[in-house]
C-alpha cells in the first residue's frame, strides 16, 4: 500500500533528476573532436586551464559573498526594527516583502529602467541633486556592472532574510530577556549574549538557502547584462549556459555544472554540520 502511494513520486524524480544526472555524467566524459568522440576526463582537465571558467568562478564568489553580507546585515536590521509592537506593522511587513515575490525577469526589467543612463530614475534623481552622471552608466560600465547586479540582488532578496529572521526573533521566549534585564545587561550585551545565540538556527538556515541561490545565480544577470559588458558579470551558471546553448559544447558545459554542483554540496554540508551541532533539524 505505501508503495502505491510513493511510486509515482519516485518514478517522476528518477526520470527528471536522477536520469538527467547520469545522462549528464556520460556526456561530460565525452569530447567531440574532428576524429570523433573521445571518452575520458578531457573536459575536466580543460577546466583547469580555462581562464574564462576561472574568472566566472571568481565572479560567482565575489557576487555571493558581497550580496550575502549586505542582505544579512540589512535583513537583520530590518527584522530587529520590526520586532516590536508598533502600529502598521502588518502593512510594513507585507510591503517590504514585495521585491522577493517578483519574477526575476521582472526584476531585471525594473532595474533596466531604474539604471538606464539616459532616462533612468536613479541618474535623473542624482542629476537633480547636482551630481554629474555622465560616467554613471551602471550595467553598461565595466567598473560598475558587478556592483549594479549585486545591488539588484540585495534589493530583491534582503526581504527574504528579513522575513526568516523576524520569524526567528518572534519565536524567542520572553524569559531570557527578563533575566538579562534583572542582571542589568545593557541593550548591546542583551543582543550579543541573548538574541544572537537564540537566533542562530534561523540565521544558519537563511544563510544556507541564500548561499545556494547566490552560487547558482542566473536569471537577473542574464536580463540585466547577459554577463557583460565583455565578461564583467559572467558567473558560472551564465558561462555554462553560453557554453551549452550558444557554443553547443554540451560535454564541457556538463563538466562545469558538476563543479558547481560539488561546490554547492560542500558548502551546504558545512552549514548543515553547524545546524546539526545545534540539533535544530
Amino acid at each position: 500500500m505505501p508503495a502505491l502511494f510513493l511510486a509515482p513520486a519516485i518514478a517522476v524524480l528518477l526520470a527528471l533528476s536522477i536520469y538527467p544526472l547520469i545522462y549528464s555524467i556520460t556526456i561530460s566524459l565525452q569530447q567531440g573532436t574532428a576524429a570523433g568522440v573521445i571518452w575520458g576526463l578531457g573536459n575536466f582537465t580543460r577546466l583547469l586551464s580555462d581562464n574564462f571558467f576561472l574568472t566566472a568562478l571568481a565572479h560567482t564568489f565575489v557576487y555571493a559573498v558581497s550580496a550575502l553580507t549586505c542582505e544579512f546585515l540589512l535583513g537583520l536590521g530590518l527584522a530587529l526594527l520590526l520586532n516590536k509592537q508598533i502600529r502598521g506593522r502588518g502593512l510594513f511587513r507585507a510591503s517590504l516583502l514585495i521585491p522577493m515575490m517578483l519574477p526575476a525577469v521582472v526584476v531585471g526589467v525594473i532595474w533596466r529602467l531604474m539604471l538606464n543612463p539616459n532616462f533612468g530614475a536613479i541618474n535623473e534623481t542624482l542629476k537633480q541633486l547636482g551630481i554629474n552622471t555622465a560616467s554613471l552608466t551602471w550595467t553598461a560600465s565595466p567598473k560598475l556592472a558587478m556592483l549594479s547586479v549585486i545591488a539588484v540582488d540585495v534589493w530583491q532578496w534582503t526581504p527574504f532574510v528579513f522575513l526568516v529572521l523576524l520569524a526567528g526573533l518572534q519565536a524567542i521566549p520572553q524569559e531570557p530577556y527578563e533575566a538579562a534585564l534583572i542582571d542589568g545587561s545593557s541593550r548591546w550585551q542583551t543582543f550579543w549574549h541573548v538574541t544572537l545565540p537564540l537566533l542562530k538556527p534561523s540565521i544558519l538556515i537563511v544563510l544556507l538557502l541564500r548561499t545556494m541561490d547566490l552560487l547558482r545565480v542566473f536569471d537577473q544577470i542574464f536580463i540585466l547584462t547577459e554577463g557583460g559588458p565583455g565578461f564583467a558579470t559572467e558567473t558560472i551558471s551564465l558561462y555554462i549556459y553560453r557554453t551549452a546553448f550558444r557554443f553547443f559544447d554540451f560535454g564541457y558545459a556538463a563538466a562545469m555544472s558538476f563543479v558547481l554542483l560539488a561546490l554547492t554540496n560542500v558548502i551546504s554540508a558545512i552549514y548543515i554540520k553547524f545546524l546539526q551541532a545545534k540539533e535544530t533539524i
Partner: protein
Amino acid sequence: MSRKIAQGSRYALLTVALLFSLAPAYWMLTISLKTEVDQFASPPAWFAFTPTLEHYYDAFVTRGFGEYLFTSVIVAVASTVCALVIGTLAAYALARFELPWRLNRRLSLWILSTRMFPAIVTAVPLFLMMRDVQLLNTRASLIIVYTGFNLPFVVWMMRGFFADLPRELEEAALVDGDSRLGALVRVVLPLVSPGLAATAVFCLIVSWNEFLFALVLTQTDAAMTLPVGIAGRVTQYEIKWGVMSAAATVAIIPILVFALSVQKYLVRGLSMGAVKG
C-alpha cells in the same frame, strides 16, 4: 521623551526601507502607463503624467504577449495540479506509514536533495532529453519539468502538515471501513486544506516565475512563457520600454494576489518547511 525619539526614528527608518523596496516597481508601473514623451521627461515624472493604456494594447493585442500569457497560465496550473496529486500521495505515505529500513527519513531526505541541484545542472541534460523525444518547444515539456521541480517541495510541505494532524482522526475513518485513499480524501485532506492551498500557491508562483528551463526548452512563440517573451524583448537592440513594462506589470499581478493570500505560510514555504513560522 527619548522613547518618542526612538519610536520616531524607528518609523523613519522603516519608511525609508519601504520607499526603497516599492519605488522601483512603482517606477516601472508609471513607465507602462506613460506616453513615450513622458517616459523620457527630465526631471522624471513620478506622479504628474497623463496615463495611457496604449502599451498594454500594443503588447497583448498587437504583439504576441497574449499568447505567452496563455502559455504561462496553462503551464503553471497543469504542473501545479500534477505535482500536488503525486506529491500529496507520497507525503501522506511518508507521514503515516512505518516503512522498513528507516525509509521514511531516507526517502524524505533523498526527495529533498533532488531539489538542491542548481537548475543549470539539470537544464543541460533535460534539454538533450527533450530533444531526443522531440518535445522541445512544447508546453508539455515545461509542464513535465515543472512537475518534477515542484514535487520535492510539495512532499516536504504536505508531510509537515500531515504530521501536525492527530492520527486518531483517520483511524476512526479506517475503523468505519474506509480505504486508506478514502480516508485521505474524505477525512484528512479537508483538514489540511489551508496547507494544501498554500502549497498550491507556492507551486503556482514558482512555475509562473521560472525562467531558466523555459528559456532553454522553448524558443518559439507558440510555446514561450511570459518571462521568456519579456526577456527576448529586453535583449534586442531597440527596446520598447512601454511594451516591456506593460508585459512585466501584467506578469506581477497574479503573484501579488497570491503572495498576499499565503502570507501566513510564507516562512514555512520559502524554507521548504525547515522553519515553522
